[in-house]
Each structure stands twice: as C-alpha cells, then as structure tokens.
C-alpha cells in the first residue's frame, strides 16, 4: 500500500443478552475506550465510519443518533449498512486517500430490542422466496450445511467440534456472551435441533454489543502506543443463494487470494499464526478453513479433527470464541479485526496465543455468507 495503515486502538463492550444501556451509550462506551487505548482525543479523529442497519434498528438513517456518541459531530462521517469489517474497509480507503490520518470505526447492534433472526427473511427476493415461506436465517444455513456435508463427506460431529472448540475458548474471553466451560462434541450434539443439521449451539446467539477500532496512517501510526499493521485486504460478493453452489465459499476464497497477494502470503497455512473467522453457524468455520487455504478443498472436517485450530494448535482459530460466542450484528466482523489486532499486540489477556506475528480476520454479510472480506494483520 502507498500509505501504511495500522489498528492502534480498540474496544469492545461486554456482549450481553440484554444490555443495560441504549445503543447510543454502547457506542459511546466503545468509542471512548478505543480512543483512550489509542492515546488520542476526539480532536485527533479525522473521519468516522459506523456500521449499523436501518431495518435492525426499526428506523431509517440508523446512524443519525450515532453522530455524537461515535465522536463524529462536525467531522467527516459515513456509514455502511453491512458488517463492521466493511466499515473498516471504508475507513482504510479514507486514510489511503491521504486526506485523513486517524479514523474511528464502530459497529453495533442490540438484539434484545428486535427479533434478531427475523430480518434475514427481509433479505430474500421479495417477488419469490420471501413469499414462499421456506427460507429464513436458519433454514438457509441448514441448506448450506447439508450441501457442504454431502459434497465432502463432512459429519455432524465435525461441525459440532467447531462449536465445542469456540464455546470452550470463550470461557477465557471475559466479554463473550455464550461460554461453555469444557464444552464437548457430545454436548453440542445434544443441543436442540432447529433445522437439521443446525443445532442451537451451532447457531449464533442473539447479542447486544458494540466494537470500535481506531485506524491510523503514517506518522500517527508509527508513534502510536501499539500497532497492528494492515498488510492486505480482499473482498468479493457472490450471487443470490439459489444461483450459486452452496457447498463452497467461492467469494471468500477469492477475497483471501486477493488479500494474500497484497500481503505477500504464499502459504497461508504456514505463514498465518492465528485467525478470527465470522462463523455465524459452526459449519461455516470448516468451509472457511478451505476457502482460506488452511487446508485442501473438502478437508475442513479433517482439519478440525487434527486439533490444528485449537487454542494450542498450529493455527488457532477463534480463540475469542468467535461469532458463536457473541454476534452483535454489524459489529461481529469488526470484532474479529479487533481480536486479531489484540493477538498481534499481545493484549488478548487470558485468550492470548503466544508468538502471533501474522493474523487473519474475516467478516461476512448476507444469507449463507454471500459476501466476504478478509484482512491480514502483521506486527512490526
């Protein structure tokens, strides 16, 4: 990149089922804490990009009351109506333009004030699938999971192993909403079936929360308290879910390839020390292993069985607990970015993995991961 850009501050609110605060206050808390961690004040911020969603908030212009709590008043401000990892992309581009040195990026949502799984139906084609009543957030994921399992011979136990790993990891993340001490495959297999093969413990939990990161370019970044440098980014969008094969994540693979080329990564399975993946449903983490090149196509099940992605494995994935442990919609992918940065700077606390020099973060938007974005971060 022409200009080097780094994550120099971050904060996440605790993820909760029913936060004791409005969304504005959650945003304010995250923004203040992220700025403090960066050692900056509001005056230093050049641009603010938020990620929030009109139909989740039940009103249009969902950022209109976030101007003050995000620190954006009388500043360059915009939003994306997608995952926060895309807000970070927008902020990155603003910094690369050379017109700003510091960007605040915030994602948030409050599942406790709306039926959080219901809006998925609103993303369906209104002239056909929405009227037919067969697809929703869970049944669509179930069709994706079955398609993947069938093509590559993946078992339900291998999918359950993802949930057991991540919910177990979440015990060491004090901010996680859903943590299950000593979670086992048997326990996950015993959890309630929603739409086969999707079980409750394999589906993201309704979550309140916010995440903020501070991006900086040039001298500000070099003089910062800490820096996790953005080495590469890639993002691709796939077609509507009935018009593409659901057994693989093509757009994620393309995004990863683009990101790796930018970051100079040739052997991701060796060069990447840790990954934070947006697995809205457990099987998506296995599919992501393949798309990200951590293992060969169809080998996601064997890869989890090998223990490689455990906290003590060769390529830990989601030591934070991932999205299965907390999914504040619009903040989830941004939180992956924050978590990856925390691992690089050595500030991940109890879920810190030793010696992380290169980390990957993934965000997604749309039913069955229609669009995907991948970042690679590096230390000094």
């Amino acid at each position, binding site marked *: 990149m022409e200009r080097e850009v780094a994550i120099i501050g971050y904060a996440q609110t605790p993820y909760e089922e*029913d*936060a*004791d*605060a409005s969304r504005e206050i959650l945003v304010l808390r995250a923004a203040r804490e992220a700025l403090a961690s960066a050692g900056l004040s509001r005056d230093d911020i050049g641009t603010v990009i938020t990620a929030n969603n009109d139909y989740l908030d039940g009103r249009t212009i969902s950022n209109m009351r976030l101007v003050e709590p995000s620190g954006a008043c009388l500043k360059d401000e915009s939003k994306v109506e997608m995952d926060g990892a895309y807000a970070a992309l927008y902020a990155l581009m603003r910094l690369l333009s050379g017109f700003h040195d510091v960007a605040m990026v915030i994602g948030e949502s409050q*599942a*406790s*004030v*709306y*039926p*959080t*799984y*219901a809006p998925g139906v*609103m993303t369906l084609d*209104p*002239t*056909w*699938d929405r*009227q*037919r009543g*067969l*697809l*929703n*957030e*869970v*049944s669509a994921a*179930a*069709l*994706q999971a*079955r*398609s993947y399992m*069938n093509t590559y011979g993946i078992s339900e136990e291998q999918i359950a192993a993802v949930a057991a790993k991540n919910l177990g990891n979440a015990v060491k993340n004090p901010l996680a909403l859903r943590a299950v001490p000593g979670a086992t495959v048997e326990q996950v297999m015993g959890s*309630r*079936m*929603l*739409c*086969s*093969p*999707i079980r*409750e413990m394999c*589906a*993201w*939990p*309704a979550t309140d929360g916010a995440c903020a990161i501070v991006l900086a370019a040039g001298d500000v970044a070099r003089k910062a308290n800490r820096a996790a440098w953005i080495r590469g980014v890639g993002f691709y969008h796939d*077609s509507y879910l*009935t*018009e593409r094969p*659901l057994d693989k994540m093509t757009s994620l693979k393309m995004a990863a390839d683009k990101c790796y080329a930018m970051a100079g990564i040739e052997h991701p399975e060796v060069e990447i020390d840790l990954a934070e993946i947006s697995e809205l449903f457990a099987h998506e983490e296995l599919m992501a292993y393949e798309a990200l090149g951590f293992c060969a196509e169809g080998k996601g099940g064997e890869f989890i069985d090998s223990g490689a992605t455990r906290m003590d494995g060769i390529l830990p994935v989601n030591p934070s607990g991932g999205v299965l442990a907390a999914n504040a919609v619009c903040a989830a992918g941004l939180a992956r970015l924050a978590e990856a940065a925390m691992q690089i700077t050595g500030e991940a606390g109890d879920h810190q993995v030793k010696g992380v020099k290169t980390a990957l973060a993934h965000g997604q938007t749309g039913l069955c991961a229609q669009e995907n974005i991948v970042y690679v971060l590096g230390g000094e």
Partner: protein
Amino acid sequence: MEYKDETTSISGSWNLGQWHWKHETAVLMQHFLASLKDKKVLGLKCPECGLVYCPPKPYCSCLSIPEEWVEISDEGVVTTFTFSGSWSYGGMEEGAGTPRIIVGVMLDGSNTEMLSQLEDADRDHVDVGMRVKVKWADEPQGTIEDVMHSLPA
C-alpha cells in the same frame, strides 16, 4: 433492561404488504405463472453465458439480459435439504404445524435452484441426488403455490 418496555409507541403498523417492487420480474413472472396452468415450467435463458434461470430473472451475473423462454422439466434432482421442525430461536418462531422437509431442487434444464416442500417422502430416504417432481394440483391456478410442493419421482 427495564425501561425498554416503556418506550412510547406511535400507533400504526409497518405493513410490508404495502411495498411494491417495480421491475421487469413482474412481467416475466406473469408469463411464467400463466404457463403453470398448463403444468409447464419455463426458464429464461441468458444469450451470453447460456444460464437458465427458473424462476425467471431479467438480468444475469454476466451483465447480459436473459430473454429466451425455454421449457424446462417439472422433474429434477435434490441438491440439498433440511428437516425443519417446530422451534423458536433468536426471536423467530417456526413450524407451528407439521415438520417440513425443505429441499433445494435443480429442475432438469435449469441452472438455478428452486426450493420446495417435499411431501410423501420417508425421511430416511431423503438425500442429495434424489429425483423429485413438482406436485401439481389437478387444476393449477397459475400462482406461486403451484410449484410449492414436490414428490419423490
């Protein structure tokens, strides 16, 4: 949080049925649905890449305009499936009736999937690759309902 239930509401409702979608699909859909009365399933073929869309769609990912109607089969192959029972999760309530078998079906001659509800099938025999066919009413009405259900072929 206690006070969220005390939010003042403005009475009224957000009736999504009042929303309309103005695009070519409506015209295409009329033709598609009319042919269902004759138990014929039509697809729309892209002149550039050859993809056949069923239901029809006026734009293709290759940036061309599908416009050639082709008759496709009312039989096809199951590409994926799920058993959806009765559950509530994340604020959603589903399946207040009998459990459903939802299948993704690639009708012979189509390149896109049509979801349908499979009936008269033994769960143990439902699998990817299974052949199914549209369950026609004796007198199809020319509506979306006509191709909602399928049967083992």
